[in-house]
């Protein structure tokens, strides 16, 4: 198991490296730079600024300098937020993004699995129909629309929940953003879980378990859930990417100062350092979470471990 984990880590690192390299060159090759917008700077000031950010060096030297910095844990300066470097900005945004993403991920996975199970066990009865409807809503209502609608309904009309913003430690400020982020994710998981659970409940080994008189609860908990989870877990990896995309939208709609907002404003401002930094950060986050997903997968399906 440990060796398996180690192998996965080794194969994940080059991916992150290549991705950062590609991003770096795409950004630099693009016309325009961070200081082209607004009032033109005097030439000598511009030269100084460019020298400060190493922009006067040959491209490849810039690249080496950047990678060297990253390896030492220095993501470089931000070009739009002059007083901060990228690491500091990430550190500011991280708690929001992580709180939001992590709660949505956990809640969505839990709710999705549960809903899928209920749907499968009560296949074609009313609990199934209700859940399938909720799943459909999660699938076809894009998150920005869902966000706007929930904000309007619960925040503006009913005034039950704050329509946006962030107060540290306030759960009510989290309810709407997490719901918007989690719903589609839960919907996809529930759909997968329903299908695989129905399949598993029809397998010979579940019949064997029933024939042993284990009782429906034990049959479900011990014999059916684990194998039924396999497709769900293999979805969690790609699912994380969608969740991340969603968190950018949700941070935008509800005005949460997370990394997603930095990314968008950095992209709009041509803030190379911050775009690269956030991209790298997201990538590492995805790789790490994917690794965890892989390990869970190996635990669920013993055959994977030995191949």
């Amino acid at each position, binding site marked *: 198991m440990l060796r398996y984990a180690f192998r996965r880590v080794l194969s*994940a690192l*080059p*991916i992150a490296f*290549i*991705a950062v390299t590609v*991003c770096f060159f*795409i*950004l630099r090759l*693009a*016309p325009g730079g961070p200081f082209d917008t607004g009032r033109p700077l005097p030439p000598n000031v511009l030269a100084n600024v460019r020298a400060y950010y190493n922009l006067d060096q040959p491209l490849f030297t810039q690249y080496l300098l950047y990678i060297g910095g990253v390896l030492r844990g220095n993501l470089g300066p931000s070009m739009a937020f002059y007083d901060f470097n990228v690491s500091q900005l990430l550190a500011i945004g991280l708690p929001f993004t992580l709180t939001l993403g992590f709660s949505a991920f956990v809640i969505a996975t839990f709710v999705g699995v549960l809903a899928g199970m209920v749907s499968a066990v009560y296949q074609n009865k009313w609990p199934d129909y209700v859940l399938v409807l909720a799943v*459909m809503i999660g*699938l*076809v*209502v*894009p*998150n*920005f*629309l869902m966000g*706007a*609608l929930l*904000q*309007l309904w619960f925040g*503006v*009309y009913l005034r039950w929940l704050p329509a946006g913003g962030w107060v540290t430690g306030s759960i009510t400020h989290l309810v709407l953003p997490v719901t918007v982020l989690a719903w589609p994710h839960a919907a*996809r998981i529930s759909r997968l879980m329903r*299908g695989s659970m*129905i399949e598993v409940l029809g397998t010979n080994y579940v019949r064997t378990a029933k024939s042993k008189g284990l009782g429906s609860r034990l049959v479900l908990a011990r014999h059916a859930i684990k194998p039924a989870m396999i497709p769900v877990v293999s979805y969690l990896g*790609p*699912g994380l*990417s*969608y969740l*991340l*995309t969603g968190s*950018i*939208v949700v941070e*935008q709609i509800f005005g949460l100062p997370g990394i997603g907002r930095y*990314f*968008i404003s950095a*992209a*709009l401002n*041509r803030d190379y350092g911050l*775009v690269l930094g*956030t*991209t790298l950060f*997201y*990538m590492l986050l*995805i*790789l790490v979470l*994917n690794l965890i997903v892989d390990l869970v997968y190996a635990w669920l399906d013993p055959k994977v471990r030995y191949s």
Partner: protein
Amino acid sequence: MAGLTRKDEVLSAYAEKLATLDAPKGRSLTQDALRRLIANKAALVSLILFGLIVAVAFIGPYFVPWGFAQVDWTAFRSPPNFETSHYLGTDQNGRDVLARLLQGTQMSLLVALVATLVSVFIGVIYGAIAGYFGGKVDAVMMRIVDVMYALPYILFVIILMVIFGRNPLLLFAAIGLVEWLTMARIVRGQTLALKEKEFVEAARASGAKPFTIIIRHIVPNLSGPVVIYATLTIPEIIITESFLSFIGMGIQEPMTSLGTLISNGAPVAEVMPWLLVFPAVVLVTMLLCLSYIGDGLRDALDPKDR
């Protein structure tokens, strides 16, 4: 954004089926699937409704008395009103919501269509080359695809948007540029099977160049997967486009898209609900239809499921 239609799942099931059959039978397998799709009531209704929306979006503007950028100085913020022939009301700038809605729907569909074509084009060429040459070329090319799969592609769309400016045409291209991965995988698998066929052998023996063989003999046999891929990709791109427009990186004024309309309608929905409701209904209906069509395709391709 992706994952609405479980594209990968459907297509890999389909590719598996094709691989177990003789490749030229791919067409009849597709026909068979289409027949089953039409027998599926939900999918058929969705297909018709979707077709209707497309038709209205493109023909409708000729029957609407207002242009999408035309300002009616007598009617700002007007709720739906039949007397002034603003059937769905007007926005803050006195522009007719119906005209804008039709234009926005058109735009969303166009973006989806062009982006899908771009991704099909890249995917087919890339996959066919990898599959046809095989060996190391194949290994390296597919490894690149694997790597790109692991990346948060929406970040790249945003980076591309920033770099290339906010021209709608470039928006199409940018989305297409990152959507081709699945297509490349499927096409590669198909090509691997096809290149062992007699007609390809014959072409090779008669001295045809590899690219001629790919274009003349391999690509025409890929129609089945392409149709299915396109059906499943369009809704994903519609969502992606509206998402980009929503965060302000998509279609720019005075042009509009469903995402832009929703994005503009959402903040004022409390006082002018019609600005949010109508585009939202159209968007959700289209996605719902496409989702049922996708489901129908999946069932048609894999009847054992349910």
